[in-house]
């Protein structure tokens, strides 16, 4: 397998959890197509919060999405320089579908297969279009992950903080369920919070008293549940106050951990990725905190916040042009710690 193209054309598949996504990228900056089977629309229609998790669903959707993606990009499979797929972390049966499909396609066109880490995709998503990844502090904050990392350039990541229980996005979604809001919960709470008072209820801010960069959002969820049990009937303005106060507690913790990380590891750039990076209050508070210190903040484009294949394709372009090679026997993994490009170096946590 040769890596001849300077502006490689790569098709990437993402099936790490609920979303089935395919994208075609050329070089560092040209998105030729991006197709996503969005669960959120289905959930809105049914009012449910339960996704179709099934690998069977991925299997049913994937061939159509790949075809659609190639058609939109107006290319033939033989024109591709490589085929990429997310191999972890995620749900193994779901990952297997995307990986097997990508390997099969790559073999059929005699081009390399590139195995991509889902978290690396999120980390690089704020830099889509750029050919160099600067040293920076990264916060990956989504439904499944809450991680603080030092990024020392492409493919060199150091985990310095992570959640000990729930991810921040999960806290939003579970809170929305407790409050009886529709799916997706995070954006609903963000929307309702705009007319509420963030200081109305003093929800707990976990893990702020220790010196670690770890997170914990489970206690906050418990506190909300107890509050709702004590105050079962809420007016629209009270609901807005609850949403604003709950959101403030999460944002407060995220902002303070970022601030602490910057004190420990001085950087001049912070990048925030994942679905929770869409939260307007988080963006507002981060700007207030970092702008006076002359620290820049970078976010992914709106189409690359939640799980998508654009970020997987972009990571694949970087891998291809860095001459990274994935073996045909590459296998899926469910835990981030299995990837050697992620080292873990957590500051001491006195509480454990």
């Amino acid at each position: 397998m040769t890596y001849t193209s300077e502006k490689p054309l790569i098709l990437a598949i993402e099936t790490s959890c609920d979303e089935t996504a395919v994208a075609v990228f050329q070089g560092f900056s040209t998105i030729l197509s991006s197709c996503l089977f969005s669960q959120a629309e289905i959930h809105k229609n049914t009012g449910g919060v339960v996704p179709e998790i099934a690998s069977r669903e991925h299997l049913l959707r994937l061939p159509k999405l790949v075809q659609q993606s190639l058609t939109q990009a107006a290319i033939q499979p033989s024109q591709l320089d490589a085929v990429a797929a997310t191999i972890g972390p995620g749900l193994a049966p779901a990952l297997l579908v995307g990986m097997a499909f990508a390997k099969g396609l790559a073999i059929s066109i005699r081009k390399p297969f590139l195995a991509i880490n889902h978290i690396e995709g999120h980390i690089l998503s704020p830099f889509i279009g750029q050919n160099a990844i600067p040293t920076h502090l990264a916060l990956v904050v989504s439904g499944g992950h809450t991680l603080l990392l030092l990024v020392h350039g492409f493919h060199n990541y150091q985990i310095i903080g992570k959640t000990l229980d729930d991810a921040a996005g999960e806290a939003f979604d579970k809170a929305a369920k407790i409050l009886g809001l529709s799916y997706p919960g995070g954006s609903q709470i963000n929307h309702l919070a705009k007319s509420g008072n963030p200081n109305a209820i003093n929800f707990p801010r976990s893990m702020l008293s220790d010196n670690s960069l770890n997170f914990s959002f489970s206690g906050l969820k418990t506190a909300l549940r107890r509050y709702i049990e004590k105050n079962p009937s809420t007016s629209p303005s009270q609901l807005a106050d609850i949403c604003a106060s709950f959101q403030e507690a999460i944002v407060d913790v995220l902002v303070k951990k970022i601030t602490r990380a910057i004190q420990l590891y001085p950087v001049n750039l912070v990048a925030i990725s994942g679905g929770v990076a869409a939260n307007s209050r988080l963006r507002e508070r981060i700007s207030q905190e970092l702008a006076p210190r002359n620290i820049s903040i970078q976010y992914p484009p709106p189409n690359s916040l939640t799980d998508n294949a654009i970020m997987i394709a972009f990571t694949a372009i970087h891998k291809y042009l860095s001459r990274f090679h994935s073996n045909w026997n590459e296998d899926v993994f469910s835990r981030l710690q299995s990837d050697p490009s992620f080292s873990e170096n957590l500051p001491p946590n006195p509480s454990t």
Partner: protein
Amino acid sequence: MEANSFWLLGQTKFSSSENETINLAASWAATWQSPLTIAISGPLGAGKTRFVAGIARGLGSSDSVSSPSFALVHTYQSPKWPIYHLDFYRLSFQDEVWQLAFEDYLSHAIVLVEWGEKFPHVFPPSSLQIQITPINPSHRQLTLQTLSTSIPPPSQLLL
């Protein structure tokens, strides 16, 4: 091994803090002689994930335990057995459990399932259940019982 590490079927234990819950689970798990399958039940925020963290620690795992609500399955290594930490919270149909490769985990590993009581019929016979009941913000009542799997309706038996 301390006598109070053991947990009898039907026995209720009390915990006054998150740390105590973790210690209780850890000392219990340290007594295990063979892999167990346990449904971990309790309302949102009861401390189910913390209980699993305790079991993992008791089995000698140094992996960090977090909520698998989104990913549905987390796996941890321990010197004795692999640990599968599942969460049925987001699942709506029993059929979805099989798509997590649930049956593959059962024979050789510790299987800990948050919200497992949602689909009791997927569990093998003699599966256990820990019911966590919040008494107040910090105190929890924890009861060990067999997971009740009443006989499924005939329609399910035929399928």
